[in-house]
């Protein structure tokens, strides 16, 4: 098919914090303005806007898309809100890509904003209603249940231990020490993770990313528009998304098939034949530490049950052969749901441009990937980026 090539030409982000004084729309504005400034553009240069934000129940603002539109530069523009739960942060740039690739627009501002701190007693409570109202909610489930159940199945299928998985948390929180937006940068040990409070075995406190407020934004441009904007475009060469059944309990919890399908869609489009060799750097979604490994396998960056070996061998460290979550990920930078996925896209954008500062991975990578995941553990969203 004939697509317009689409480049990322600018990026912006706020700090990720537990509680932000700013309203959601003010956070969206701060990130959007920074993204436009980063490439010398104004909102008048933007032809369309793609907004990503997760459940309305977090902010307690019904129809959050309409609410956030002014801070996202959506005033009197073709504006569209995207939402696939935690997968939203990569879904929004995919929609931005569709806007430009289709030839409808030459520029698109992609904004993701989340304000979880408004929700009391804890944003986790808002997740109760993602479970089936009749057959599951009556059991008083908490969000952590599904992660704990999936993590246990993942561990037992492949014989992986909690101590091994904890190294993801250690790595990502350490990587976050160099991320200026980070909420939870920490130098910790496997013992610290193991000794942190058990929330829902096998999940401990330090296995989980925090609740956060924050926003991120990128500017997309068609090939000919990008030439006027930057000499360092980063191309979105492949996009993929896929949803599995909402009957989550009936799925094979040890392997995210929907992530595989999303990744294969993106690889086919980008002409990636051997992901293990060609994807030099990646930001798999890591709201929980085991998810990084789980997703690496779905993304075909590791064989099933073998991602843990790459972790233990140091391959996924920032200075390793295949850095994973060099930003610090959701575990370290923080997890304002939709903004997290876009933060990951921004990290790959900066890494490929050689502008990641202290976080820069060696070897001048040319091809990377960002992925997010969400809904009722059923959606995978993937973008493949190249310079």
């Amino acid at each position, binding site marked *: 098919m004939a697509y317009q090539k689409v480049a990322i030409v600018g990026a912006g982000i706020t*700090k990720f914090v537990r509680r932000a004084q700013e309203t959601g729309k003010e956070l969206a504005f701060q990130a959007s303005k920074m993204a436009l400034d980063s490439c010398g553009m104004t909102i008048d240069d933007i032809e369309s806007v793609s907004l990503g934000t997760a459940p309305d129940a977090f902010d307690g603002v019904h129809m959050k898309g309409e609410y956030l539109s002014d801070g996202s530069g959506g005033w009197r523009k073709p504006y569209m809100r995207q939402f696939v739960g935690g997968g939203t942060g990569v879904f929004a740039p995919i929609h931005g890509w569709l806007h430009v690739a289709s030839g409808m627009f030459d520029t698109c501002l992609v904004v993701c904003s989340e304000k979880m701190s408004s929700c009391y007693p804890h944003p986790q409570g808002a997740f109760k209603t993602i479970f089936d109202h*009749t057959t599951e909610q009556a059991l008083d489930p908490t969000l952590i*249940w599904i992660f704990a159940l*999936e993590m246990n*199945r993942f561990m037992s299928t492949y014989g992986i231990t909690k101590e091994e998985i904890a190294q993801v948390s250690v790595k990502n929180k350490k990587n976050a020490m160099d991320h200026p937006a980070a909420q939870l940068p920490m130098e910790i040990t496997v013992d610290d993770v193991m000794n942190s409070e058990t929330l*829902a075995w096998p999940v401990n406190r330090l296995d989980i990313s925090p609740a956060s407020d924050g926003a991120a934004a990128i500017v997309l441009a068609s090939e000919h528009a990008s030439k006027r904007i930057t000499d360092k475009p980063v191309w979105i060469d492949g996009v993929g998304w896929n949803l599995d059944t909402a009957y989550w309990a009936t799925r094979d919890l040890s392997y995210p098939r929907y992530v595989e399908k999303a990744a294969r869609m993106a690889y086919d489009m980008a002409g990636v034949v051997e992901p293990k060799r060609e994807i030099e750097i990646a930001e798999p979604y890591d709201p929980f530490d085991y998810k990084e490994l789980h997703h690496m396998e779905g993304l075909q960056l590791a064989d099933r049950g073998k991602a843990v070996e790459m972790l233990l061998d140091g391959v996924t460290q920032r200075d390793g052969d295949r850095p994973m979550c060099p930003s610090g990920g959701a575990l370290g930078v923080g997890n304002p749901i939709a903004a997290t996925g876009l933060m990951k896209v921004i990290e790959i954008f900066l890494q490929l441009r050689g502008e990641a500062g202290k976080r820069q991975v060696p070897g001048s990578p040319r091809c990377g990937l960002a992925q997010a995941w969400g809904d009722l553990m059923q959606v995978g969203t993937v973008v493949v980026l190249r310079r």
Partner: protein
Amino acid sequence: MELDKKELGATHYKESALKEGKLLSLAKQPKLQYAWDNGPAIGRYLEELKEGRIIARKCNKCRRIMIPPRMFCELCWRPTDEWVYVKDTGKVNTFSICYVNWDASRIKKGDKPHLPAVIEIDGASEGMGILHVLGEVEPEKIKIGMKVKAAWKKPEEREGAITDILYFKPVRG
């Protein structure tokens, strides 16, 4: 461009700033209540639970026996065909030992942890699981693959809800 902390937005505040009035805030509780229609599949499922039975639904194309029952097969994308009773036994597909309540508050000291599990129900297709909780078992004795059986409420106390099964408990032997 490189990210510079000085240039990044978002102003962090401590929760106490609201109580002390350093920042203005507004508390609100939306009082929304719902009555979710059960529909034919879940309606029948709940009626059967009230009678102490578990019912599933079969698709004659892929031959899956599905639980919870549904009137359409999401794989074949066609209506399902038959009601099939399945057993009230099964095996543990995965489980957790949970010390957190739904709103992230912690369970009271000395209270037993929640024991959520995915139970693969005997008589349904391989891998067909439902979310439920385990009971009458020490948390450290739970194993993946363990055989379990439904512990039902007394017939007169059942109300046509998933909680008519109190929990699944280990089958001896």
